[in-house]
């Protein structure tokens, strides 16, 4: 009975964590970099904005695996700039395993789709007419 209770509590915790990670711009960015830190590229790719019919999580995961040059030791989300109700920028401090390489600062665009936040820019077709068509690139 005790084991069963522990199992149920763990299951609920997992469900809560997976649901809450995309509830906010900060949450999705934290989840994304946590996955990158653990080299779980498939899980990280699932958090990317699913744009177009050709979107494939597996392809994005492969691209991520190939593009991450520095192994991530730790990270911290510094803050959020809300651009509109559907898009935001999140500033993140990245500390590579090789500390001699120095810390990095990135701002990550995030966008809302079907009530969930994703990593990436909001497609122009999804933007209201009052917003800009251009968003800053992820940059350091």
């Amino acid at each position: 009975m005790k084991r069963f209770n522990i199992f149920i509590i763990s299951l609920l915790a997992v469900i809560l964590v997976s649901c809450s990670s995309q509830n906010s711009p900060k949450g999705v960015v934290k989840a994304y970099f946590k996955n990158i830190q653990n080299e779980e590229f498939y899980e990280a790719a699932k958090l990317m904005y699913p744009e177009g019919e050709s979107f494939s999580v597996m392809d994005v995961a492969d691209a991520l695996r190939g593009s991450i040059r520095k192994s991530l030791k730790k990270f911290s989300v510094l803050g959020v700039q809300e651009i509109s109700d559907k898009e935001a920028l999140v500033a993140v401090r990245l500390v590579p395993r090789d500390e001699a390489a120095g810390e990095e600062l990135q701002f990550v665009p995030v966008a809302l789709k079907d009530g969930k936040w994703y990593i990436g820019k909001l497609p122009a077709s999804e933007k209201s007419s009052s917003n800009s068509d251009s968003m800053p690139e992820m940059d350091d």
Partner: protein
Amino acid sequence: MKKLSLLMVAVLALLLVGCSSQRSPESATKAFFKAVSQSAYGDAVKYVKMDENDKPDELAKALELDDKDNKIVSYNVLGAAYRTKDNAKVAVAVEYEKGEPKKDITIVNVVKVDGKWVIDEF
């Protein structure tokens, strides 16, 4: 005697504020943005790295022109990442009066010169 004590406290407070505004990359950036947002361009220049040939008046004028082009309505210093012990990048959430995008995150490059943090590039 009471007046003298008050004066001493005020002087000490001013000294502390003066020293602390360049004690970290974040505080130097905050002081710079505060000065620019208050149109105090002459003060803002104090937080910018100067080369031998740079003239504070000219730099203040350039800052004023830049700011009038795209006036800062609000700013929020989010935090810093240290590239080295003497070089950091600071993220600032900025809202402009006009222009696109109106809201953005600016990355400011800050360096330590003679023990004080100053803005190198933004």
